[in-house]
């Protein structure tokens, strides 16, 4: 691949020139060179619409789709498990594993029954299925560790149902779930093809509880992509080398969780009409960054670090500004930092005729309480809450990676005996 292609993919993934995920972040165990684009970015004028992303390796210590640079399209699908027994649950995870293993590699799917049965692939990507950078990241919710499958003793220590923060408006139908599948790929048809195939081979074992599509905007014009409020979102992600301290499950967690991480999804509606009625100055005071450049209000470019110590009264960056409250950049809050991998969403129109748009807040962290929940508790009542409404989502534990062809999702958990620790 040429340097230009590599750069284009990185830009499309929102990581060029930002303090976000560096190339070293690519999929943990993956050979990073394989991840980079062989085709031009889809969002670039004149790009080949048929270009696809190369395959992202499925097997590894960690799942892909966590440190993998953001692909352009995604879907977040929560499922309730309808299997009755531990064996059926194991079969469900095996079926998901096998399907994801095929989809992430791509190829021509065998059709053993020929014309005597419906085809095994929906065919929406053509006969020769492209991998198109697909990642399928599977997580489990706290509800899976109830009485049904004898897993209660093995629940990750911080895993819990998402209860509302004071400014939330969570719809139970769009919150929680036994499982969460994050599908990301080079384009939306690749994502939806994967969803159809995975649900097809798991019928009877699980039912979709909620499903949200998201897209990663291209850089406008450079750097980290913008959200619907026009601000660059995800600038201050920790670097991948901090993952042992900030991302992957801690030693204090049950042994089966090694290589996994907590996954936070929040469906945050953004009242864009209202936002567009606010002056740029006021918007910037709420966020703490320059809307055009992404720079903190005391800096000149998006990668600049804000210096709160030099501005204790908040004269330049208000004390209530989103970036200042979320990440005060003190020694104490350093261990709270999370890996954000957010997407924008658009789901039509609201009952009152306003656009239904928002942020698919999507983040990973080592410890829900110490990191995400601590940050969000601090953000309660921030000025921006008038313009947003978290309406759904959930807390999940993204499983350890599937190591090889003989392994399957959650194998380390499902082989533990019921009731014992």
């Amino acid at each position: 691949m040429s340097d230009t292609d590599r750069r284009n993919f990185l830009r499309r993934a929102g990581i060029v020139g930002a303090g976000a995920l560096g190339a070293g972040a690519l999929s943990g165990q993956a050979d990073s060179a394989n991840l980079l684009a062989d085709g031009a970015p889809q969002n670039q004028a004149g790009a080949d619409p048929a270009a696809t992303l190369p395959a992202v390796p499925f097997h590894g210590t960690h799942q892909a789709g966590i440190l993998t640079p953001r692909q352009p399209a995604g879907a977040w699908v929560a499922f309730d498990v309808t299997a009755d027994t531990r064996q059926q649950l194991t079969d469900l995870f095996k079926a998901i594993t096998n399907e994801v293993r095929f989809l992430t590699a791509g190829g021509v799917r065998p059709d053993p029954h020929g014309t005597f049965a419906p085809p095994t692939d929906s065919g929406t990507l053509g006969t020769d299925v492209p991998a198109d950078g697909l990642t399928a990241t599977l997580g489990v919710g706290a509800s899976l560790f109830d009485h049904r499958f004898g897993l209660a003793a093995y629940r990750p220590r911080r895993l819990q149902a998402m209860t509302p923060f004071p400014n939330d408006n969570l719809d139970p139908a769009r919150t929680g779930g036994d499982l969460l599948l994050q599908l990301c790929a080079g384009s939306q048809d690749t994502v939806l093809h994967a969803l159809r195939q995975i649900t097809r081979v798991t019928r009877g074992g699980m039912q979709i509880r909620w499903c949200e599509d998201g897209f990663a905007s291209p850089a406008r014009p450079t750097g980290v992509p913008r959200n619907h409020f026009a601000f660059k979102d995800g600038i201050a992600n920790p670097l991948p080398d901090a993952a042992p301290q900030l991302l992957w499950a801690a030693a204090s967690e049950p042994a089966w969780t090694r290589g996994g991480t907590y996954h936070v999804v929040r469906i945050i509606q953004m009242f864009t009409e209202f936002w567009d009625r606010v002056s740029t100055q006021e918007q910037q005071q709420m966020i703490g960054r320059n809307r055009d450049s992404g720079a903190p209000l005391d800096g000149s470019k998006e990668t600049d670090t804000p210096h709160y110590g030099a501005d204790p009264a908040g004269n330049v960056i208000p004390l209530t500004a989103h970036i200042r409250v979320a990440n005060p950049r003190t020694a104490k809050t350093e261990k709270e930092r999370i890996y954000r991998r957010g997407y924008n969403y658009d789901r039509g129109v609201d009952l009152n005729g306003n656009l239904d748009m928002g942020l698919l807040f999507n983040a990973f962290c080592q410890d829900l309480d110490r990191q995400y929940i601590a940050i969000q508790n601090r953000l309660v009542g921030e000025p921006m809450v008038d313009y947003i409404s978290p309406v759904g989502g959930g807390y999940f534990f993204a499983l350890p990676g599937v190591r090889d062809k003989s392994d399957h999702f959650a194998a380390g958990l499902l082989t533990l005996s019921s009731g014992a620790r």
Partner: protein
Amino acid sequence: MSARLLSTVAALAAMAALTACGQTTRTTDTSAGPVAPNPAPIQTEQLLGPMGSYETYVYRHLATLRPQLATLQQDLAANNASAAKRDWQKARISWLQIGQDDQQYGAFGNLGGAIDGLAAGLKGGAHSAAFTGFHRVEYDLYTSHNLHAAQADTAKLRSLVSQMTPQTVTKDLALTPKSLDTWVLRCHEILEDALRDSLSRNDDYGSHMELASVSADVTATREMLSVLGPLIQPRMPGLLSTAARQLRTIDARIKAAHGGTAARERLNASVSAALETLAPVSEVIQITNANT
């Protein structure tokens, strides 16, 4: 072609070029006109009079509200559900006309939230003990149909409203530059809330009285524009008349809004249009260096 016509053509061409360069063209109805050149900066003292008028307005509505709540309490004691619903609605409208809804924007602080908060952000939702006030009683009357609970919750609501004294109101409407600026935001925020929470039924616990709520919100918005009018008029000469016309349109469309989707769309459109007009007010009526 005459010289005059030529210059007209040139002017039109220049306008067309401007439009092509991204000059905004709006629906005629939302045009509030330009800001007057070099508007005089607003001094804190200039907002004290309007704020005083608004406080008087608040006390007048509280004086109406308190006996309405007493009547509601009597309805419940008499186990009369239909009278209770009627009187809850009357009290609700009196409250909304003050210009506070659903604890948005922190008006009247925690007390305002206890009187008019939603269940959404509470652990346990509508079953939470922290869910109090108007919507709690609405839930009792219209959703759980529990008059016994409504009695206790109305007593709680009355107690909360009785705490809205000049002392507490003055505390929440403090006369600092910052809080005066926050207060000015209500020129548009009351109606923003009507669109976001009432017309979406996001704040509905069974009474379905969003049309009456929006009407009350329009009344409150009118009061804000009235007390701030003398400051707005010289700075945005076209705004008040446009806003007044648009608020009248909302009134008319509320009356017609029982007629299904098309009528509702027309109402939503009129509220949205008024909001576009009102958006600049808080920027123009802003105390310089109030961020302290």
